[in-house]
Structure formats: structure tokens, C-alpha cells
């Protein structure tokens, strides 16, 4: 990964391209690369859909190698949803293929002067940017079918559906999985709208003739990778729970804890929870000839995903993740897995973030657009309104905050304009701190790397002190930023938490690949550096301490059944970024 591809969509005479040396980005990846480039090159006060914004795509540090779990791809830009910096990542095949093609990043900038729609084809010899207006307003599944006929099945595809072309702030970028389904999405923050604003419909990566990226120390890399895989396989979460039930294994537990936000955050318990739990979902998938265990990219050894077939045993969608099952399920009072799976498919096809879309629908239900529990109504809203770009569809497709305003809803669960996912911050207050303070807006993955005790980031925390929640969240966010920068799937955090030798194996892989010795301190320093840059960008974009807050109803409305409110004080939240 020694080069960066820069494409100027607004060049006079049509899009231009240039190749630059990767320089400092050669040994970086994922969120570190996207956020550093965005922070350096994008004016923080620019319009997210204007020519000055840039879409930056970066594979992980070990993507394109034989290293396990290394296939996450990051997309960065100024977010049309939050107005701040954004990094959104997904699985699928593109990271591996892009890395084997040698690109540390692709930067798409400018904006075409005409309304032509483009596709970008990248192989080992050249980059072809061509007009293809026949793709206009196609949704992801038929689009990929059409592109496959032309570009074959050895390629990996990134694309936007009609929502991206309509520049909806909830629009996602789809990445194809090993079966070439556009089912893995850089979902959060409206990155698909930025791709739509650049008038790029699809990027096709073809690595024919390319080799796996070679490590500097092949034997060391192989040995570290083996230890890393063993660690992942022997751990109860990554080796057993996630493969068997996927992330939706969390539904029952969150519900039992009274932390499952139900009917737009009114209660923490959903009476229909077991009907849509991961356990019920896995049974149904297997019964219908689908799969309860499946990897989103080659090289994934956890395989938290699956294949969800319809009643007739035909593929409907990939296994909906916990946050999707929640947003379209309990949040909307819907307890039918087939309805939720259909909504997941529609979201993927139209190209919208499943969390933002589901939360927006729940808010619309609270505003009286349809009743809570109306599954058919929810399908109609996504398929016939968002999918067709009607005025109502555009309100919903621009996210929960816009929907709340349009329908005068007081309880709108967003931070920095981005919908709060699946875990009520009144029940797990530490995650509320992360939602409030993350540079990304409300994001459950922002403080996900549960390995802080091993990394010893920030030293040992005294959880009994009031500032304990803030300190824990800070450490989690730093560690997560670091893992996001490696491009590894975040689910490796569990074996790392419990098994120091697995964390050492990961450092060993990075060290053996790049021929440098990496320590836990280096990882933490990287996390802090990236967070600082993101924070600085947001400040310049107009964000202040008042934006690092949860909506007030979390402080004033006690959440049944435990009847608790969010109690972390504003002054404590303001301490989060004071790490010296």
C-alpha cells in the first residue's frame, strides 16, 4: 500500500486522476488514514455535499494480507448528518482487494459540472472513470447484478443506492460480501450522500494478477497470525457466542437488564424480545436452510454473520445485526423477524443506514405517522417513501433528527444529529458518556474496544469515583480509535480483553508485517492522535461543549423498569478530552 489515488471529479474537461506516494500513510490504515486526510484537506466549515468535501476510502493496516479479521474498510468525510468529521467502516471484500491493488487511500474530491453519473474501475494496470447514466437511481442489489455482468465475479464492489444519489443524510455505501451481495454497509453519518454528491455510483476493484501483500518477516507474521487465530477461536465470545448467534445474541440480555430501548426510548423492556432474539433468529435461519454462521469477508474467523432466508427458503438478506433488529424491532414495537429482515433488505437495497432508518421510523411512529408495531406500515415507509424519494421519504431518509422536527416529536434520541443505537444510556451510563462525547455523534462502536485494562490506557480507573464513568469512556474511545485504525474487526476486542497473549499476537502481526516493533503505548498514542485531530476538526466546524450532551429527556424521564435517569454531570462530560 504505497500509493494514494486522488480523483478530482470536478476537473475541467471531466474527472482527472493522479497517483501520489502514500508517505506517512504507508504504515497506517482505516480511521487513522481517513481522519488524518480529512482533517488536513477538508475545510471544517465546508458544506458536506459541496465540492470542498472529500470522500476518503482506506483499507486496514493488514488488509490484503493473510492476516485474519483484517478486512474492514473505512470511509471518511465531513458528515452531512452530523456536520462533523466522520469515519464509517464495513466488512465485505473491498478492503482486501483495494489493499492488494496497493492503495493506502483513495481520495475523491470536487464535484462534476454536469449531472452525469460515474463509475470508477480500478485494476492493477489502470484506473478508468467513465460515465454510465444507465445506472441512475438503481438500487444496490439490481445495480450489482448489472455491474457483475460487465465486470465479473472476481471484483469487489462499493456502491450507493437511490438514497445516496438523492443525497439523503442517512445514505450508506454498500460493500459486497464474498458472495457479491451488497450487504455490508459503511452506514453511519451519511457517507453515501457524499459519494452521491460526487456523482460516483460505484467503485469496482479488480485485483486480477495481484498477490497477497508480503510481510517483512514472513515466518514471524505466520506464527503471530496462528497465535492470534487460536486466541480468537478459543474465546467464548469470539469462538462460540458470536458464530452461533451473531450480535443479536444481545437482545435477551439487554432486555433482561432493562436497557433495551423500546417504542422510542419509553421503556427498557420489550415484551416481544424473545420473538426477535438472536437465539430465535438462528433457529429460524437454520430451519429455512440459511446460515447462522457466515463471514462478511474472506479471512474472518469469527463469522458473526449469517444468511436469512424467507418462508420459501429463498435468500432475503444477510443476518440482521443486533442494532438493526433493535432499531426496526423493539424501538418500533415490532416483534416479527420476517418484517425486520425485509426492512434490513430494503435498507441495504436503497442504501440507508439501518440504525438511522429504524430510529427515524420509531420517531415518526411517536409523531403519529403510523402506529407503533405496524410492521406493514414500516415496510411501506421504507420501500414506497424513502425508496421512491417522496417528500415524506426524504424527511425519513435524512434521519431521526429531521424526522423529529418534521413531526414535532419531543423525544428525539440523537447526539450531534446522529441516532442513538440500541443501548439505553440510562441503564449503562458509561455508554451514555461515549454517545455524548464521541467525535462521531452517538455511536455504540466509538467506545467498543473493551481492552482498556490490558492496554492500561489512562492508568487504572477507580470506578467508585464519580468521574469513573468518564474515565472509562475516555479510555474505551482511545482504544477503539486505535483498533479502528488497524482496520481490524472490532470483535477481536473480546479475546484481547481476556487473553493478553492474543493482544501480543496482534502486535506481533503488525510488527512482523511492517518490520517495526509495536507496543501497546504506540497503539494508544495513535488512538489519542487521531481523536485529537477529529476533535479539532469538529471544533472548527462549530462544535462546542454544548454539543457533547445527551438529549435532555435522558436526564428527566426515568426509564422503567429500573426507573433511572442519566446522572453524569455536564462538567464531568467536559473532562473527557482533558488527557493532557
Amino acid at each position, binding site marked *: 500500500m504505497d500509493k494514494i489515488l486522488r480523483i478530482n471529479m470536478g476537473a475541467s474537461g471531466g474527472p482527472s486522476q493522479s497517483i501520489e506516494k502514500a508517505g506517512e500513510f504507508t504504515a497506517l490504515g482505516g480511521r487513522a488514514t481517513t481522519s488524518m486526510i480529512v482533517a488536513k484537506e477538508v475545510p471544517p466549515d465546508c458544506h458536506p455535499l459541496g465540492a470542498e468535501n472529500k470522500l476518503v476510502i482506506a483499507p486496514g493496516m493488514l488488509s490484503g494480507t493473510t492476516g485474519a479479521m483484517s478486512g474492514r474498510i473505512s470511509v471518511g468525510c465531513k458528515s452531512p448528518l452530523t456536520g462533523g468529521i466522520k469515519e464509517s467502516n464495513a466488512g465485505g471484500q473491498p478492503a482486501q482487494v483495494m489493499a492488494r491493488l496497493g492503495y493506502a487511500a483513495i481520495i475523491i474530491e470536487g464535484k462534476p459540472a454536469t449531472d452525469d453519473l460515474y463509475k470508477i474501475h480500478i485494476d492493477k494496470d489502470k484506473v478508468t472513470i467513465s460515465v454510465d447514466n444507465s445506472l441512475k437511481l438503481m438500487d444496490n442489489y439490481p445495480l450489482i447484478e448489472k455491474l457483475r455482468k460487465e465486470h465479473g465475479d472476481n471484483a469487489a464492489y462499493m456502491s450507493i443506492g437511490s438514497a445516496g444519489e438523492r443525497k439523503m443524510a442517512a445514505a450508506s455505501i454498500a460493500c459486497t460480501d464474498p458472495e457479491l451481495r451488497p450487504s455490508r454497509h459503511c452506514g453511519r453519518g451519511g457517507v453515501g450522500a457524499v459519494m452521491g454528491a460526487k456523482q460516483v455510483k460505484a467503485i469496482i476493484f479488480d485485483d486480477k494478477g495481484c498477490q497477497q501483500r508480503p510481510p517483512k518477516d514472513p515466518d514471524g507474521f505466520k506464527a503471530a497470525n496462528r497465535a492470534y487465530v487460536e486466541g480468537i477461536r478459543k474465546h467464548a465470545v469470539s469462538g462460540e457466542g458470536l458464530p*452461533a448467534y451473531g450480535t443479536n445474541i444481545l437482545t435477551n440480555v439487554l432486555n*433482561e437488564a432493562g436497557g433495551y430501548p423500546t417504542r422510542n426510548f419509553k421503556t427498557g423492556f420489550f415484551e416481544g424480545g424473545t420473538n426477535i432474539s438472536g437465539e430465535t433468529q438462528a433457529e429460524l435461519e437454520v430451519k429455512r436452510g440459511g446460515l447462522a454462521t457466515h463471514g462478511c469477508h474472506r479471512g474472518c474467523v469469527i463469522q458473526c454473520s449469517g444468511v436469512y432466508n424467507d418462508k420459501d427458503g429463498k435468500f432475503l438478506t444477510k443476518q440482521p445485526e443486533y442494532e438493526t433488529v433493535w432499531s426496526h424491532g423493539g424501538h418500533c414495537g415490532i416483534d416479527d423477524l420476517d418484517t425486520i429482515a425485509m426492512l434490513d433488505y430494503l435498507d441495504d437495497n436503497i442504501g440507508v443506514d439501518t440504525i438511522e432508518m429504524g430510529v427515524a421510523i420509531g420517531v415518526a411512529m411517536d409523531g403519529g405517522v403510523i402506529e407503533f408495531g405496524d410492521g406493514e406500515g414500516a415496510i411501506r415507509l421504507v420501500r414506497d417513501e424513502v425508496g421512491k424519494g417522496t417528500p415524506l421519504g426524504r424527511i425519513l431518509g435524512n434521519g431521526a433528527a429531521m424526522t423529529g422536527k418534521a413531526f414535532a416529536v419531543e423525544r428525539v434520541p440523537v447526539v450531534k444529529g446522529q441516532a442513538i443505537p440500541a443501548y439505553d444510556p440510562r441503564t449503562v451510563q458509561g455508554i451514555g458518556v461515549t454517545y455524548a462525547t464521541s467525535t462521531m455523534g452517538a455511536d455504540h462502536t466509538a467506545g467498543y474496544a473493551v481492552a482498556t485494562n490490558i492496554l492500561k490506557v489512562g492508568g487504572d480507573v477507580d470506578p467508585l469515583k464519580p468521574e469513573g464513568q468518564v474515565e*472509562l469512556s475516555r479510555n474505551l474511545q482511545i482504544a477503539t480509535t486505535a483498533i479502528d485504525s488497524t482496520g481490524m474487526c472490532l470483535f477481536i476486542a473480546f479475546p484481547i480483553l481476556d487473553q493478553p497473549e492474543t493482544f501480543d499476537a496482534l502486535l506481533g502481526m503488525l510488527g512482523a508485517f511492517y518490520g517495526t516493533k509495536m507496543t501497546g503505548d504506540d497503539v494508544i498514542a495513535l488512538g489519542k492522535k487521531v481523536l485529537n485531530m477529529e476533535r479539532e476538526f469538529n471544533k472548527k466546524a462549530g462544535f462546542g461543549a454544548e454539543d457533547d450532551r445527551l438529549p435532555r429527556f435522558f436526564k428527566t424521564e426515568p426509564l422503567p423498569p429500573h426507573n433511572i435517569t442519566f446522572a453524569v454531570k455536564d462538567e464531568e462530560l467536559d473532562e473527557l478530552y482533558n488527557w493532557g
Partner: protein
Amino acid sequence: MQTSANLQLQLTLNSVLISEFYPLLQRGVWLPVTTGCSVMNLLNSQLGIAEVYVQDRITTLFLDGKAIDELTSAYIEDGSTLALSTAMPGLVGSTMRRGGHLAAMRGEITCHPSQAVATGAGTVKIKLFNMLMKEIGPLLLERGIFLSGAELITLLTAGGASLRNGCDSVILDGFPLPCAELFEQLPTRVNPQQMMLLKVIWQG
């Protein structure tokens, strides 16, 4: 809480059919037990689950919706609900883990040590999640669970042909009954309002 049943039913089933009980096990099954004991006492001494299994495998527990850190100082009362799970993914999964590094993040719903309560005959509702349904579910059903006639009818109807075909014998209130008869005459044999004690003997 209910400590006796109007009707007793014993089924002998093929062990693969445990999966038919998963919806019921997730929602929770009532068990006759001696209450007023610690969670560890209930699981280990009364239900016969090995201590090492409880310690290593049942890493996420909720007593009446509160996350448990200490197995010996959380007490079961008559009518308590105890939910059991293996280790969970995600930040929140880790947060919920018994005695985990991140337990402080859910301080508001942590189950704090309580005074020992009076012992006596009672019932406890046990919910099983994920791998524990397969691993502990058979044991609970063997021991016997209370359920309403309506719940039994739902269970046997949803199980359909596979439950019927995998059923080797039926004893209803002490009298053997052909399996087909139970399934065919379900509405006349079982009153939805009736409280039943169901025991399962596993085969194969």
C-alpha cells in the same frame, strides 16, 4: 407463588428436541425450589450444576433484572426471576459480565448484596439464554417445570410433527397414554388455565 400443580405430565423425548423448548426457556420456566438461598446454592446444590461450570460458563446473570457480581451474596426469594447467560459480546456485553472490569458502567442496575431471606418452599423463574439453553435446559426439564396449560398447548402445537415423532412415551397424572392421543386430544386433555408440572426424560 405456586408450589403445586393440578396435573403432572411426563414426556420421554429424543434429546435433539430440546430446541423445541428454546422459546419457553428464553421466556423463563418456573421451578419448584427451596428459596431463601444464594444464587450459587440454588444453581449448584439444588439444581446440580457443577460449581466450576457456574463460575466459568455462566458469566452473565441477572436477578430480577439486576446484574449479579457476587454469586454467594445475591439471594433468591420466592417468585424471583434469575436469568443466565454465557459471556456476551460488545461493550455492553462486557459491562454486564459478572465482576467484569467494566461493571462500574452499569452501577445503577447492579445487584447489591442483600440480607439472607427466610428459607422455605417456593418457586423461581429461570430464563436461559444462548448456549445455556442447550447445556442446562435438559437438566431443568428433567427436574420438572411449572407451566400453564396454555403454555403447554403452545409448546406442543409449535413443536408439531417433530415433537410428535420424537416422543417415545407419555405419562399423564401417573397413567401411560399413547403419544398420538396426547397430541390429538390436547384441547380436551389440558385446560389452558390449569397449572401443570412437566417433566421430560431424554433419550439418545
